[in-house]
Protein backbone atom coordinates (compact mmCIF):
# COMPACT_ATOMS: atom_id res chain seq x y z
CA UNK A 1 0.00 0.00 0.00
CA UNK A 2 2.05 2.95 -1.22
CA UNK A 3 2.34 5.97 1.01
CA UNK A 4 0.45 8.38 -1.26
CA UNK A 5 -2.72 6.35 -0.86
CA UNK A 6 -2.31 6.17 2.91
CA UNK A 7 -2.74 9.93 3.33
CA UNK A 8 -5.57 10.38 0.83
CA UNK A 9 -7.83 7.78 2.48
CA UNK A 10 -8.76 6.54 5.92
CA UNK A 11 -6.49 3.93 7.48
CA UNK A 12 -8.33 0.62 7.91
CA UNK A 13 -5.92 -0.51 10.64
CA UNK A 14 -6.26 2.74 12.67
CA UNK A 15 -5.77 2.00 16.34
CA UNK A 16 -8.83 3.45 18.07
CA UNK A 17 -7.06 4.05 21.38
CA UNK A 18 -4.59 6.43 19.72
CA UNK A 19 -7.39 8.43 18.07
CA UNK A 20 -7.70 11.51 20.29
CA UNK A 21 -8.79 10.12 23.67
CA UNK A 22 -11.27 12.81 24.70
CA UNK A 23 -13.49 12.36 21.57
CA UNK A 24 -16.06 9.89 22.95
CA UNK A 25 -16.65 7.62 19.97
CA UNK A 26 -19.92 5.77 19.53
CA UNK A 27 -19.76 2.30 18.01
CA UNK A 28 -22.68 1.76 15.66
CA UNK A 29 -23.30 -1.63 14.03
CA UNK A 30 -24.70 -1.14 10.53
CA UNK A 31 -26.08 -4.62 9.88
CA UNK A 32 -26.08 -7.57 9.65
CA UNK A 33 -29.78 -6.99 9.95
CA UNK A 34 -30.23 -3.59 8.27
CA UNK A 35 -32.52 -2.48 5.46
CA UNK A 36 -29.76 -1.18 3.25
CA UNK A 37 -26.77 -3.49 3.57
CA UNK A 38 -27.74 -5.40 0.44
CA UNK A 39 -27.67 -8.74 2.18
CA UNK A 40 -26.21 -9.98 5.43
CA UNK A 41 -23.20 -7.74 5.93
CA UNK A 42 -22.09 -6.02 9.12
CA UNK A 43 -20.22 -2.73 9.14
CA UNK A 44 -18.90 -1.73 12.54
CA UNK A 45 -18.71 2.06 12.44
CA UNK A 46 -16.81 4.14 14.97
CA UNK A 47 -18.68 7.46 14.97
CA UNK A 48 -17.36 10.76 16.28
CA UNK A 49 -20.70 12.64 16.39
CA UNK A 50 -22.14 11.62 13.05
CA UNK A 51 -18.82 11.45 11.18
CA UNK A 52 -17.30 8.00 10.64
CA UNK A 53 -13.80 7.61 12.05
CA UNK A 54 -13.20 3.94 11.28
CA UNK A 55 -15.22 1.26 9.49
CA UNK A 56 -14.58 -2.44 10.08
CA UNK A 57 -16.55 -4.77 7.79
CA UNK A 58 -17.53 -8.26 9.01
CA UNK A 59 -18.55 -10.96 6.54
CA UNK A 60 -19.38 -14.60 6.63
CA UNK A 61 -23.01 -14.46 7.68
CA UNK A 62 -23.99 -16.08 4.37
CA UNK A 63 -21.10 -18.57 4.23
CA UNK A 64 -22.57 -21.84 2.91
CA UNK A 65 -19.36 -23.78 2.22
CA UNK A 66 -19.91 -23.83 -1.54
CA UNK A 67 -16.24 -24.62 -2.14
CA UNK A 68 -16.46 -27.59 0.21
CA UNK A 69 -19.56 -28.78 -1.64
CA UNK A 70 -17.52 -28.65 -4.85
CA UNK A 71 -15.36 -31.48 -3.53
CA UNK A 72 -18.38 -33.76 -3.28
CA UNK A 73 -20.60 -32.93 -6.28
CA UNK A 74 -19.69 -33.87 -9.84
CA UNK A 75 -19.04 -31.28 -12.57
CA UNK A 76 -22.60 -31.32 -13.90
CA UNK A 77 -24.27 -31.08 -10.50
CA UNK A 78 -22.31 -27.91 -9.65
CA UNK A 79 -23.93 -25.74 -12.30
CA UNK A 80 -27.31 -25.33 -10.51
CA UNK A 81 -25.47 -24.78 -7.22
CA UNK A 82 -23.33 -22.06 -8.70
CA UNK A 83 -26.07 -19.88 -10.13
CA UNK A 84 -27.09 -19.22 -6.54
CA UNK A 85 -23.81 -17.52 -5.67
CA UNK A 86 -24.34 -14.11 -7.23
CA UNK A 87 -28.10 -14.31 -7.04
CA UNK A 88 -28.59 -11.07 -8.97
CA UNK A 89 -26.81 -12.17 -12.14
CA UNK A 90 -26.95 -16.00 -12.15
CA UNK A 91 -26.06 -16.29 -15.87
CA UNK A 92 -22.54 -15.02 -15.19
CA UNK A 93 -21.91 -17.60 -12.47
CA UNK A 94 -23.00 -20.51 -14.62
CA UNK A 95 -21.03 -19.25 -17.61
CA UNK A 96 -17.74 -18.69 -15.73
CA UNK A 97 -18.05 -22.11 -14.04
CA UNK A 98 -18.83 -23.91 -17.29
CA UNK A 99 -16.01 -22.05 -19.10
CA UNK A 100 -13.56 -23.12 -16.39
CA UNK A 101 -14.63 -26.77 -16.83
CA UNK A 102 -14.38 -26.44 -20.60
CA UNK A 103 -10.85 -25.10 -20.15
CA UNK A 104 -10.02 -27.99 -17.88
CA UNK A 105 -11.47 -30.67 -20.14
CA UNK A 106 -10.29 -28.93 -23.34
CA UNK A 107 -13.83 -28.87 -24.76
CA UNK A 108 -14.77 -26.73 -27.79
CA UNK A 109 -18.03 -24.70 -27.68
CA UNK A 110 -20.01 -24.41 -30.95
CA UNK A 111 -20.60 -20.96 -32.41
CA UNK A 112 -24.37 -20.97 -31.83
CA UNK A 113 -23.90 -21.66 -28.13
CA UNK A 114 -21.30 -18.88 -27.85
CA UNK A 115 -23.71 -16.43 -29.48
CA UNK A 116 -26.56 -17.56 -27.23
CA UNK A 117 -24.37 -17.18 -24.13
CA UNK A 118 -23.37 -13.64 -25.10
CA UNK A 119 -27.01 -12.62 -25.57
CA UNK A 120 -28.10 -14.19 -22.27
CA UNK A 121 -25.15 -12.59 -20.44
CA UNK A 122 -25.89 -9.11 -21.77
CA UNK A 123 -29.59 -9.38 -20.95
CA UNK A 124 -28.69 -10.53 -17.45
CA UNK A 125 -26.42 -7.48 -17.13
CA UNK A 126 -29.36 -5.20 -17.94
CA UNK A 127 -31.54 -6.99 -15.36
CA UNK A 128 -28.80 -6.84 -12.72
CA UNK A 129 -28.10 -3.14 -13.23
CA UNK A 130 -31.85 -2.43 -13.10
CA UNK A 131 -32.05 -4.16 -9.73
CA UNK A 132 -29.05 -2.16 -8.55
CA UNK A 133 -30.71 1.07 -9.72
CA UNK A 134 -33.86 0.31 -7.73
CA UNK A 135 -31.96 -0.69 -4.60
CA UNK A 136 -29.73 2.40 -4.84
CA UNK A 137 -32.77 4.68 -5.14
CA UNK A 138 -34.21 2.93 -2.08
CA UNK A 139 -31.00 3.64 -0.17
CA UNK A 140 -31.20 7.33 -1.00
CA UNK A 141 -34.93 7.87 -0.93
CA UNK A 142 -36.15 5.49 1.70
CA UNK A 143 -38.61 2.61 1.51
CA UNK A 144 -41.64 4.82 2.15
CA UNK A 145 -40.82 7.57 -0.30
CA UNK A 146 -39.45 8.56 -3.70
CA UNK A 147 -36.86 5.78 -3.57
CA UNK A 148 -39.41 3.03 -3.62
CA UNK A 149 -41.17 4.62 -6.59
CA UNK A 150 -38.06 4.20 -8.70
CA UNK A 151 -37.55 0.74 -7.18
CA UNK A 152 -40.96 -0.34 -8.47
CA UNK A 153 -40.29 1.05 -11.92
CA UNK A 154 -36.97 -0.84 -12.14
CA UNK A 155 -38.61 -4.08 -11.06
CA UNK A 156 -41.43 -3.57 -13.52
CA UNK A 157 -38.87 -3.35 -16.34
CA UNK A 158 -36.79 -6.20 -14.98
CA UNK A 159 -39.83 -8.48 -15.14
CA UNK A 160 -39.81 -8.14 -18.94
CA UNK A 161 -36.34 -9.68 -19.06
CA UNK A 162 -37.14 -12.40 -16.54
CA UNK A 163 -40.14 -13.42 -18.65
CA UNK A 164 -37.85 -13.73 -21.68
CA UNK A 165 -35.48 -15.92 -19.67
CA UNK A 166 -38.48 -17.98 -18.58
CA UNK A 167 -39.36 -18.54 -22.23
CA UNK A 168 -35.87 -19.88 -23.03
CA UNK A 169 -34.82 -21.75 -19.92
CA UNK A 170 -38.10 -22.45 -18.16
CA UNK A 171 -37.05 -20.78 -14.94
CA UNK A 172 -37.15 -17.09 -14.01
CA UNK A 173 -34.02 -16.96 -11.99
CA UNK A 174 -31.97 -20.10 -11.37
CA UNK A 175 -31.70 -21.36 -14.90
CA UNK A 176 -29.21 -24.28 -15.03
CA UNK A 177 -29.23 -23.64 -18.77
CA UNK A 178 -25.48 -24.10 -19.33
CA UNK A 179 -23.64 -27.40 -19.54
CA UNK A 180 -20.08 -28.37 -20.40
CA UNK A 181 -19.67 -27.76 -24.11
CA UNK A 182 -22.73 -25.57 -24.73
CA UNK A 183 -26.26 -24.79 -23.62
CA UNK A 184 -29.16 -27.06 -22.66
CA UNK A 185 -32.08 -24.92 -23.93
CA UNK A 186 -32.39 -23.63 -27.46
CA UNK A 187 -34.19 -20.41 -28.42
CA UNK A 188 -37.95 -20.89 -28.97
CA UNK A 189 -39.33 -19.41 -32.21
CA UNK A 190 -40.49 -15.81 -31.97
CA UNK A 191 -38.22 -15.12 -29.02
CA UNK A 192 -36.22 -12.45 -30.88
CA UNK A 193 -39.37 -10.38 -31.47
CA UNK A 194 -40.10 -10.48 -27.74
CA UNK A 195 -36.53 -9.37 -26.99
CA UNK A 196 -36.79 -6.41 -29.34
CA UNK A 197 -40.10 -5.32 -27.80
CA UNK A 198 -38.85 -5.63 -24.23
CA UNK A 199 -35.57 -3.83 -24.82
CA UNK A 200 -37.28 -1.01 -26.68
CA UNK A 201 -39.55 -0.43 -23.66
CA UNK A 202 -36.63 -0.53 -21.26
CA UNK A 203 -34.63 1.89 -23.39
CA UNK A 204 -37.46 4.43 -23.38
CA UNK A 205 -38.12 3.94 -19.65
CA UNK A 206 -34.46 4.62 -18.79
CA UNK A 207 -34.92 8.21 -19.95
CA UNK A 208 -37.86 8.42 -17.55
CA UNK A 209 -35.66 7.29 -14.62
CA UNK A 210 -33.14 9.98 -15.50
CA UNK A 211 -35.66 12.56 -14.26
CA UNK A 212 -35.34 10.95 -10.83
CA UNK A 213 -31.59 10.73 -10.96
CA UNK A 214 -29.07 12.56 -13.03
CA UNK A 215 -30.95 15.85 -13.32
CA UNK A 216 -32.50 15.79 -9.85
CA UNK A 217 -30.48 18.08 -7.60
CA UNK A 218 -31.41 16.34 -4.37
CA UNK A 219 -29.96 13.13 -5.86
CA UNK A 220 -26.84 14.98 -7.05
CA UNK A 221 -26.44 16.49 -3.61
CA UNK A 222 -26.41 12.96 -2.15
CA UNK A 223 -24.01 11.43 -4.67
CA UNK A 224 -21.66 14.06 -6.12
CA UNK A 225 -18.10 13.55 -4.74
CA UNK A 226 -19.36 11.21 -2.05
CA UNK A 227 -17.25 8.10 -1.57
CA UNK A 228 -14.54 8.93 -4.11
CA UNK A 229 -12.50 5.88 -5.20
CA UNK A 230 -9.75 6.97 -7.57
CA UNK A 231 -7.96 4.80 -10.11
CA UNK A 232 -4.90 4.00 -7.98
CA UNK A 233 -6.89 2.85 -4.95
CA UNK A 234 -9.17 0.74 -7.16
CA UNK A 235 -6.25 -0.96 -8.92
CA UNK A 236 -4.42 -1.42 -5.63
CA UNK A 237 -7.45 -3.16 -4.11
CA UNK A 238 -8.00 -5.37 -7.16
CA UNK A 239 -11.39 -3.76 -7.81
CA UNK A 240 -12.74 -4.41 -11.29
CA UNK A 241 -15.99 -3.61 -12.98
CA UNK A 242 -18.11 -0.42 -12.87
CA UNK A 243 -16.26 0.94 -9.82
CA UNK A 244 -12.92 0.73 -11.66
CA UNK A 245 -14.39 2.20 -14.84
CA UNK A 246 -15.98 5.01 -12.82
CA UNK A 247 -12.51 5.77 -11.45
CA UNK A 248 -11.18 6.43 -14.96
CA UNK A 249 -9.43 3.10 -15.68
CA UNK A 250 -10.60 1.70 -19.02
CA UNK A 251 -10.62 -2.05 -18.23
CA UNK A 252 -13.40 -4.40 -19.34
CA UNK A 253 -12.91 -8.14 -19.87
CA UNK A 254 -15.49 -8.25 -22.64
CA UNK A 255 -13.16 -6.17 -24.81
CA UNK A 256 -9.74 -6.86 -23.24
CA UNK A 257 -9.97 -10.65 -22.78
CA UNK A 258 -12.91 -11.52 -25.07
CA UNK A 259 -14.74 -14.80 -24.42
CA UNK A 260 -18.03 -16.25 -25.81
CA UNK A 261 -18.72 -14.24 -28.99
CA UNK A 262 -17.43 -10.87 -27.75
CA UNK A 263 -14.50 -10.94 -30.18
CA UNK A 264 -16.99 -10.90 -33.08
CA UNK A 265 -18.87 -7.81 -31.87
CA UNK A 266 -17.74 -4.30 -30.96
CA UNK A 267 -18.08 -3.55 -27.24
CA UNK A 268 -18.02 0.14 -26.28
CA UNK A 269 -16.92 0.57 -22.63
CA UNK A 270 -18.38 3.58 -20.74
CA UNK A 271 -15.77 5.25 -18.50
CA UNK A 272 -16.11 8.12 -16.05
CA UNK A 273 -13.30 9.88 -14.22
CA UNK A 274 -14.80 11.31 -11.02
CA UNK A 275 -14.91 7.95 -9.17
CA UNK A 276 -17.71 9.08 -6.85
CA UNK A 277 -21.21 7.62 -6.36
CA UNK A 278 -22.59 9.69 -9.22
CA UNK A 279 -19.90 8.48 -11.65
CA UNK A 280 -20.62 4.87 -10.71
CA UNK A 281 -24.33 5.30 -11.38
CA UNK A 282 -23.60 7.03 -14.71
CA UNK A 283 -21.33 4.13 -15.74
CA UNK A 284 -24.00 1.57 -14.87
CA UNK A 285 -26.75 3.48 -16.68
CA UNK A 286 -24.49 3.73 -19.76
CA UNK A 287 -23.75 0.01 -19.47
CA UNK A 288 -27.47 -0.77 -19.52
CA UNK A 289 -27.80 1.15 -22.78
CA UNK A 290 -24.67 -0.48 -24.17
CA UNK A 291 -25.93 -3.97 -23.35
CA UNK A 292 -29.28 -3.19 -24.94
CA UNK A 293 -27.46 -2.07 -28.09
CA UNK A 294 -25.39 -5.29 -28.15
CA UNK A 295 -28.38 -7.58 -27.67
CA UNK A 296 -30.55 -5.88 -30.28
CA UNK A 297 -27.68 -6.13 -32.80
CA UNK A 298 -27.04 -9.83 -32.09
CA UNK A 299 -30.41 -11.39 -31.35
CA UNK A 300 -31.50 -11.75 -34.99
CA UNK A 301 -28.18 -13.07 -36.25
CA UNK A 302 -27.79 -16.15 -34.04
CA UNK A 303 -26.02 -18.64 -36.38
CA UNK A 304 -27.65 -22.03 -37.01
CA UNK A 305 -25.91 -25.21 -35.92
CA UNK A 306 -25.62 -27.53 -32.93
CA UNK A 307 -26.09 -26.21 -29.39
CA UNK A 308 -23.49 -28.38 -27.63
CA UNK A 309 -20.35 -30.18 -28.66
CA UNK A 310 -20.85 -33.17 -26.30
CA UNK A 311 -23.57 -35.81 -26.00
CA UNK A 312 -26.38 -34.93 -23.54
CA UNK A 313 -25.49 -36.02 -20.04
CA UNK A 314 -27.22 -39.22 -18.93
CA UNK A 315 -25.39 -40.08 -15.69
CA UNK A 316 -23.90 -38.10 -12.81
CA UNK A 317 -20.34 -39.37 -13.41
CA UNK A 318 -20.05 -38.09 -16.98
CA UNK A 319 -16.77 -36.14 -17.18
CA UNK A 320 -13.56 -37.45 -15.66
CA UNK A 321 -10.14 -35.78 -15.37
CA UNK A 322 -7.37 -36.57 -12.93
CA UNK A 323 -5.01 -33.59 -13.18
CA UNK A 324 -4.69 -29.98 -14.45
CA UNK A 325 -5.66 -26.48 -13.36
CA UNK A 326 -7.89 -24.06 -15.25
CA UNK A 327 -9.01 -20.49 -14.73
CA UNK A 328 -11.84 -18.71 -16.53
CA UNK A 329 -13.22 -15.28 -15.85
CA UNK A 330 -16.28 -13.39 -17.00
CA UNK A 331 -17.17 -9.68 -16.86
CA UNK A 332 -20.05 -9.84 -14.38
CA UNK A 333 -21.99 -6.61 -13.58
CA UNK A 334 -19.76 -6.28 -10.53
CA UNK A 335 -16.38 -7.00 -12.11
CA UNK A 336 -14.11 -9.92 -12.95
CA UNK A 337 -15.85 -13.08 -11.70
CA UNK A 338 -13.22 -15.83 -12.00
CA UNK A 339 -13.36 -19.57 -11.28
CA UNK A 340 -10.10 -21.44 -10.59
CA UNK A 341 -10.60 -25.21 -10.71
CA UNK A 342 -8.09 -28.00 -9.98
CA UNK A 343 -9.06 -31.35 -11.50
CA UNK A 344 -8.68 -34.86 -10.11
CA UNK A 345 -10.98 -34.86 -7.08
CA UNK A 346 -13.35 -37.44 -5.53
CA UNK A 347 -15.84 -39.71 -7.37
CA UNK A 348 -12.95 -41.20 -9.40
CA UNK A 349 -12.04 -37.83 -10.93
CA UNK A 350 -15.62 -36.73 -11.64
CA UNK A 351 -15.57 -33.84 -9.19
CA UNK A 352 -12.97 -31.06 -8.85
CA UNK A 353 -10.13 -31.40 -6.32
CA UNK A 354 -10.35 -27.73 -5.36
CA UNK A 355 -12.47 -24.92 -6.78
CA UNK A 356 -12.00 -21.26 -5.91
CA UNK A 357 -14.30 -18.38 -6.87
CA UNK A 358 -12.83 -14.93 -7.32
CA UNK A 359 -15.77 -12.73 -6.22
CA UNK A 360 -15.63 -9.16 -7.58
CA UNK A 361 -17.89 -7.98 -4.73
CA UNK A 362 -15.27 -9.00 -2.13
CA UNK A 363 -12.80 -6.53 -3.67
CA UNK A 364 -15.54 -3.92 -4.09
CA UNK A 365 -16.29 -4.17 -0.35
CA UNK A 366 -12.61 -3.90 0.54
CA UNK A 367 -12.69 -0.23 -0.52
CA UNK A 368 -15.10 0.62 2.33
CA UNK A 369 -12.56 0.85 5.19
CA UNK A 370 -10.52 3.23 3.02
CA UNK A 371 -13.37 5.39 1.69
CA UNK A 372 -15.88 5.64 4.56
CA UNK A 373 -13.87 7.64 7.15
CA UNK A 374 -14.94 11.25 6.97
CA UNK A 375 -18.46 10.61 5.74
CA UNK A 376 -21.71 10.56 7.71
CA UNK A 377 -23.93 7.51 8.26
CA UNK A 378 -26.33 8.41 5.45
CA UNK A 379 -23.33 8.74 3.12
CA UNK A 380 -22.12 5.32 4.24
CA UNK A 381 -25.44 3.88 3.13
CA UNK A 382 -25.22 5.70 -0.22
CA UNK A 383 -21.63 4.48 -0.78
CA UNK A 384 -22.55 0.90 0.14
CA UNK A 385 -25.44 1.11 -2.32
CA UNK A 386 -23.24 2.48 -5.10
CA UNK A 387 -20.63 -0.26 -4.54
CA UNK A 388 -23.41 -2.82 -5.12
CA UNK A 389 -22.00 -5.84 -3.21
CA UNK A 390 -23.79 -9.21 -3.36
CA UNK A 391 -23.26 -11.12 -0.15
CA UNK A 392 -24.05 -14.50 -1.68
CA UNK A 393 -20.95 -14.06 -3.82
CA UNK A 394 -18.75 -12.56 -1.12
CA UNK A 395 -19.39 -15.17 1.54
CA UNK A 396 -19.80 -18.21 -0.75
Amino acid at each position, binding site marked *: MNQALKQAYGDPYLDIEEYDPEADLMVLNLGPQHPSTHGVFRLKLYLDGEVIVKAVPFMGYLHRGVEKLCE*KLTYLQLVPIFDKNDYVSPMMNEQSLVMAFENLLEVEVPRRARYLRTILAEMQRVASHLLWLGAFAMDLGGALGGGSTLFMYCFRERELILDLFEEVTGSRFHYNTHTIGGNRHDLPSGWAAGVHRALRTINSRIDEYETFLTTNDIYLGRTRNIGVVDGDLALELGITGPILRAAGVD*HDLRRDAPYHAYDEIEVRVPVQTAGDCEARSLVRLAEIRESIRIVTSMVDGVPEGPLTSRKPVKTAISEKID*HGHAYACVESPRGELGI*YVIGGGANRGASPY*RLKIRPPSLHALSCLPYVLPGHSVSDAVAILGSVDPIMGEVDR
Partner: protein
Amino acid sequence: MTILGQVPSERCQALLRDRFEPRDCDTGGPPLVAVARHVELATTLRDELGYRIFGFVVAAHYPASKSQEDGVDQIRIAYGLRTVGPSSELAAWQVQVALGETVPTLAHLFAGADWQEREQYDLVGVRFEGHPDLRRLMLPEDWEGHPLRKDYAIDTQVPPWR
Protein backbone atom coordinates in the same frame (compact mmCIF):
# COMPACT_ATOMS: atom_id res chain seq x y z
CA MET B 1 -8.60 -23.47 -27.12
CA THR B 2 -10.56 -20.42 -28.10
CA ILE B 3 -10.55 -18.71 -24.69
CA LEU B 4 -7.66 -16.26 -24.79
CA GLY B 5 -5.76 -14.94 -21.85
CA GLN B 6 -6.85 -17.69 -19.48
CA VAL B 7 -3.53 -19.53 -19.39
CA PRO B 8 -0.39 -17.81 -18.03
CA SER B 9 0.76 -15.42 -20.72
CA GLU B 10 3.98 -16.03 -22.68
CA ARG B 11 5.59 -12.93 -21.16
CA CYS B 12 5.06 -14.29 -17.68
CA GLN B 13 6.34 -17.76 -18.58
CA ALA B 14 9.38 -16.24 -20.32
CA LEU B 15 10.17 -14.19 -17.21
CA LEU B 16 9.78 -17.28 -15.01
CA ARG B 17 12.00 -19.42 -17.19
CA ASP B 18 14.96 -17.10 -17.36
CA ARG B 19 14.95 -15.69 -13.82
CA PHE B 20 13.11 -17.96 -11.45
CA GLU B 21 13.95 -21.57 -12.60
CA PRO B 22 10.41 -22.90 -12.14
CA ARG B 23 9.74 -26.60 -11.52
CA ASP B 24 6.80 -28.19 -13.28
CA CYS B 25 4.12 -29.29 -10.83
CA ASP B 26 3.14 -32.97 -11.14
CA THR B 27 -0.61 -32.23 -10.75
CA GLY B 28 -0.40 -29.71 -13.61
CA GLY B 29 -1.13 -26.01 -13.40
CA PRO B 30 1.16 -23.00 -13.45
CA PRO B 31 4.93 -23.43 -12.81
CA LEU B 32 6.15 -23.95 -9.24
CA VAL B 33 8.42 -21.24 -7.81
CA ALA B 34 10.57 -21.38 -4.68
CA VAL B 35 8.89 -19.84 -1.61
CA ALA B 36 11.90 -17.58 -0.96
CA ARG B 37 11.65 -15.80 -4.34
CA HIS B 38 7.85 -15.61 -4.36
CA VAL B 39 7.52 -11.97 -3.26
CA GLU B 40 10.36 -10.93 -5.58
CA LEU B 41 8.48 -12.53 -8.49
CA ALA B 42 5.28 -10.70 -7.58
CA THR B 43 7.11 -7.36 -7.36
CA THR B 44 8.79 -7.76 -10.77
CA LEU B 45 5.53 -8.87 -12.36
CA ARG B 46 3.75 -5.83 -10.98
CA ASP B 47 6.41 -3.19 -11.58
CA GLU B 48 8.16 -4.36 -14.75
CA LEU B 49 5.45 -6.18 -16.65
CA GLY B 50 2.43 -4.18 -15.44
CA TYR B 51 0.35 -6.95 -13.80
CA ARG B 52 -1.42 -4.51 -11.45
CA ILE B 53 -4.79 -6.18 -10.73
CA PHE B 54 -4.67 -8.92 -8.09
CA GLY B 55 -6.43 -11.98 -9.52
CA PHE B 56 -6.62 -14.83 -7.07
CA VAL B 57 -4.81 -16.86 -4.42
CA VAL B 58 -5.89 -20.52 -4.27
CA ALA B 59 -4.49 -22.77 -1.55
CA ALA B 60 -5.04 -26.52 -2.01
CA HIS B 61 -4.19 -29.11 0.64
CA TYR B 62 -2.41 -32.24 -0.61
CA PRO B 63 -2.35 -34.87 2.16
CA ALA B 64 0.78 -37.03 2.59
CA SER B 65 -0.66 -39.86 0.47
CA LYS B 66 -1.09 -37.69 -2.60
CA SER B 67 1.95 -35.44 -2.36
CA GLN B 68 5.38 -36.86 -3.35
CA GLU B 69 7.47 -35.15 -0.65
CA ASP B 70 8.32 -37.83 1.93
CA GLY B 71 4.89 -38.30 3.46
CA VAL B 72 4.40 -34.75 4.83
CA ASP B 73 1.13 -32.91 4.02
CA GLN B 74 1.79 -30.23 1.41
CA ILE B 75 -0.12 -27.05 0.60
CA ARG B 76 0.20 -25.70 -2.94
CA ILE B 77 -0.86 -22.08 -3.39
CA ALA B 78 -1.59 -20.73 -6.87
CA TYR B 79 -1.39 -16.97 -7.41
CA GLY B 80 -2.76 -14.95 -10.34
CA LEU B 81 -2.31 -11.36 -11.48
CA ARG B 82 -3.88 -9.53 -14.41
CA THR B 83 -2.80 -6.59 -16.55
CA VAL B 84 -5.01 -3.56 -17.08
CA GLY B 85 -6.49 -2.28 -20.29
CA PRO B 86 -6.64 -3.71 -23.83
CA SER B 87 -5.35 -7.27 -24.45
CA SER B 88 -5.30 -7.96 -20.73
CA GLU B 89 -3.16 -10.98 -19.81
CA LEU B 90 -3.00 -13.31 -16.82
CA ALA B 91 0.17 -14.19 -14.93
CA ALA B 92 0.06 -17.24 -12.67
CA TRP B 93 2.52 -19.28 -10.59
CA GLN B 94 2.46 -21.77 -7.75
CA VAL B 95 4.23 -22.01 -4.45
CA GLN B 96 4.52 -25.22 -2.38
CA VAL B 97 4.83 -25.24 1.40
CA ALA B 98 4.65 -28.04 3.99
CA LEU B 99 1.64 -27.88 6.32
CA GLY B 100 2.35 -25.53 9.22
CA GLU B 101 5.06 -23.48 7.45
CA THR B 102 4.31 -19.85 6.55
CA VAL B 103 4.24 -18.14 3.17
CA PRO B 104 5.35 -14.49 2.80
CA THR B 105 2.28 -12.29 2.28
CA LEU B 106 1.56 -10.12 -0.77
CA ALA B 107 -0.69 -7.74 1.20
CA HIS B 108 2.05 -5.07 1.14
CA LEU B 109 2.22 -5.24 -2.67
CA PHE B 110 -1.49 -5.66 -3.41
CA ALA B 111 -4.05 -4.38 -0.90
CA GLY B 112 -6.51 -6.66 -2.74
CA ALA B 113 -4.54 -9.68 -1.55
CA ASP B 114 -5.29 -8.79 2.07
CA TRP B 115 -8.76 -10.32 2.28
CA GLN B 116 -8.14 -13.16 -0.16
CA GLU B 117 -5.20 -14.32 1.95
CA ARG B 118 -7.30 -14.07 5.09
CA GLU B 119 -9.89 -16.27 3.36
CA GLN B 120 -7.27 -18.88 2.45
CA TYR B 121 -5.99 -18.86 6.04
CA ASP B 122 -9.58 -19.19 7.25
CA LEU B 123 -10.54 -22.07 4.95
CA VAL B 124 -7.29 -23.97 4.31
CA GLY B 125 -5.17 -22.92 7.29
CA VAL B 126 -1.99 -21.66 5.55
CA ARG B 127 -0.40 -18.83 7.55
CA PHE B 128 0.76 -15.73 5.63
CA GLU B 129 3.73 -14.26 7.44
CA GLY B 130 3.76 -10.45 7.64
CA HIS B 131 0.03 -10.10 6.99
CA PRO B 132 -1.20 -6.95 8.81
CA ASP B 133 -4.36 -8.54 10.26
CA LEU B 134 -4.51 -12.30 9.77
CA ARG B 135 -7.92 -13.20 11.20
CA ARG B 136 -10.64 -15.52 9.92
CA LEU B 137 -12.55 -13.76 7.15
CA MET B 138 -15.77 -15.71 7.10
CA LEU B 139 -15.97 -18.28 9.87
CA PRO B 140 -16.54 -17.15 13.46
CA GLU B 141 -13.38 -16.43 15.47
CA ASP B 142 -13.67 -19.45 17.74
CA TRP B 143 -14.16 -21.99 14.88
CA GLU B 144 -11.71 -24.82 15.23
CA GLY B 145 -10.37 -26.59 12.12
CA HIS B 146 -10.09 -25.47 8.52
CA PRO B 147 -12.99 -26.75 6.37
CA LEU B 148 -11.20 -27.11 3.03
CA ARG B 149 -8.56 -29.48 4.46
CA LYS B 150 -8.92 -32.93 2.90
CA ASP B 151 -9.10 -34.50 6.35
CA TYR B 152 -12.04 -32.26 7.33
CA ALA B 153 -15.24 -34.30 7.59
CA ILE B 154 -16.69 -34.50 4.09
CA ASP B 155 -19.35 -37.19 4.00
CA THR B 156 -21.59 -35.95 6.78
CA GLN B 157 -24.96 -37.34 5.74
CA VAL B 158 -27.38 -34.48 4.95
CA PRO B 159 -30.22 -34.98 7.50
CA PRO B 160 -33.18 -35.91 5.34
CA TRP B 161 -36.39 -34.10 6.29
CA ARG B 162 -38.41 -37.19 5.58
